[in-house]
């Protein structure tokens, strides 16, 4: 039991129904291996992702949140993905205020034909969040960053 257990992050993915969810489905149907850490929630459009949903996910203990929608210009609802992009951009600033590393929130464009991209993003993001470590909401980002630098110098 002394052996250190690898940290398995919990990541919530909000996938739009028309592109990213279909892309995830394609990855599954094509039997592509991807990290099981990503737990997906289907929404009709990435524009449906309310910032409070993301904050709630972090509050409930998610270590990372992925928002995935159609490529710009491909939105089934014309421009929902642009709205998602604006929200995510602003939300990242808010996350900093909350002491959450903004890298824990990721926005990706995954089309229905990009099963392979979905698998890649899931794996990449899982590794990225794993490197960031478990989310500890009490810590301020500055407090996290400073000691790390000193460690490197030492």
């Amino acid at each position: 039991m002394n052996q250190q257990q690898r940290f398995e992050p919990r990541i919530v993915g909000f996938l739009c129904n028309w592109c990213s969810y279909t892309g995830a489905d394609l990855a599954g149907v094509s039997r592509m291996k991807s990290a099981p850490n990503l737990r997906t929630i289907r929404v009709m459009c990435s524009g449906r992702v309310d910032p409070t949903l993301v904050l709630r996910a972090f509050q409930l203990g998610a270590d990372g949140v992925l928002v995935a929608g159609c490529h710009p210009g491909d939105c089934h609802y014309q421009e929902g993905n642009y709205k998602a992009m604006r929200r995510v951009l602003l939300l990242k600033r808010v996350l900093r205020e909350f002491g959450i590393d903004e890298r824990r929130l990721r926005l990706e464009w995954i089309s229905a034909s990009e099963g392979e991209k979905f698998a890649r993003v899931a794996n990449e993001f899982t590794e990225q969040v794993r490197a960031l470590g478990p989310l500890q909401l009490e810590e301020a980002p500055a407090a996290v960053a400073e000691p790390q630098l000193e460690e490197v110098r030492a």
Partner: protein
Amino acid sequence: MISLTINGTRTEVREGTTILQAARFLEIPIPTLCYHPWLKPFGACRICTVQVQRPRGYELVTACNTPCEEGMVIQTDTDHVRQARRVVVELMMARWPNVPIVQKLAAEVGLEKPRFISEMRDEAPDACILCLRCVRICEEVVGACAIGYEDRGIKRKVVTPFHEESEACVACGACAHVCPTGHMKFEPEDYRGKPPEFLLGPNTAIHVMTPQAVPKVPRIDRESCIHFKTNGCQKCVEVCEAKAVNHEMTDQELEIEVGQILVATGYDLFDASVMAQYGYGRLDNIYTALDIERMLNATGPTGGQIRLKNGQPPRAVGIIHCVGSRDENYHRYCSRVCCMYALKFAHLIKERCPEAEVYNFYIDMRAFGKGYEEFYSRVLHEGVNVIRGKVAEVVQAGWSKQEEGTLLIRCEDTLIGKLREIPVDMVILCNAIEPRRDAERVARLFGLSRSPDGFFLERHPKLDPVATSSDGLFVAGCAQGPKDIPDTVAQASAAAARMLATIAKGVVEMDPVRAEINEEYCSGCRVCNALCPYEAIEYLEDKNVSRVNSALCKGCGTCVAACPAGAITGYGFSDLQLHAELEGLLAVR
């Protein structure tokens, strides 16, 4: 009106009519040479000489350019006229003895041998007889003025300016068309080694596309029509009695309101010249499947016969499958139709050139449909060679006189485990079916998704193969993926039936996923109004609230996420449901 007498027949003609026109109207024959109905009369050859009675004696005039006068008395066949014409023909005969049209005129006037000897004698049967029809049509009809004549008298000559290639020439071929001797020649450039019949040449500037064209009406090819080059010509407008020719016609954009759309935009063929090792566009006698399909067609350029570029039937034909399909470098998918049409080609070539050897080079033989496997074995029994292996390259066989024009196919025969070189003189490439080059634009336009291979994505491959992710949009045929005719017909019928079913029902069933505003919570801030891509949210001024028109709402949920008061519920994806989902997902570590 002017009244006159020709050969004793009285007639009335309009002012400005020439004697020739009046005579032709009365069906009195007058021979002509330099005259052409499209051109202004010129009076150069003097063959059309006729006799006009004058107060004192008579006068010989050229009929083509002499206008009729009141009370004219004209004789077209007197001794004087015959004598005059005879001398004219005799002089021509002396200079151009072998030109058929001169010989014909000589026979008409009963001349066997000219008395004169011309120092400009030209033995060629297609010599220029200086009628100058070519120069005149180029100026008067075409409007290009690319050719003219130099010098005078017997030294006159039809030339281009400075004897150089004329920049003004539009390569219309009108000069060759009106040339009575064939001296003017028009040779369209050969293109990519295809038989010239594959070209849309200038003599087909107006043509019916194919005998099966729908609607079966002629069209004008703007590329070769003279009118679009010089603004002249318009001869077709003059001759069309129905007044149906209209050069002003252009493409129109029409707006049509519809409830459902079937996207059946078809496919493009893989450009075989991209695979340089197969020599398409570089070597002669290499064709794509569609070229051969045209050649095999009974209305095609060869009347359905298989011919090499030199007009001979081939001795050996190689058919290469999977050009650009099932290939990591180009398209990974199978184009599905090639195996069967390649076998059909083999069968038809065997039928039309029984002496020819036919080789099929395949990776796997995919005879998947009803009756296909039987056809495959039938073709095998006809003596068609099938070689399992991908062709490495097609090269020119050699440079000796014997081998000239033949091709060599280098391939691996995986069934005997050997490299082989097979000499053929015709190669047919079965190039891949690929998505239309504007598929991305069409997909954007309709909000369609595309599968990784680029074809339009159906809603579900098994449960909903003709619908798309957008309501009221259906796909059929190769736009959705490569397929053969039976499959396309089946899919198109299914799509049509699906659309008709919707119409017959009279009502449209909609997804219950949509938004609703709780008017008690709504503060009337109107944030949602501007966000809705469908303008489904209206603002009720009297109540100071917004309301969703549920017939227009598609349920994207953008407004739900944006409402600062949380007054909007997105059915199917409400905050409550999504929060519950989140809690469930994150309950387990």
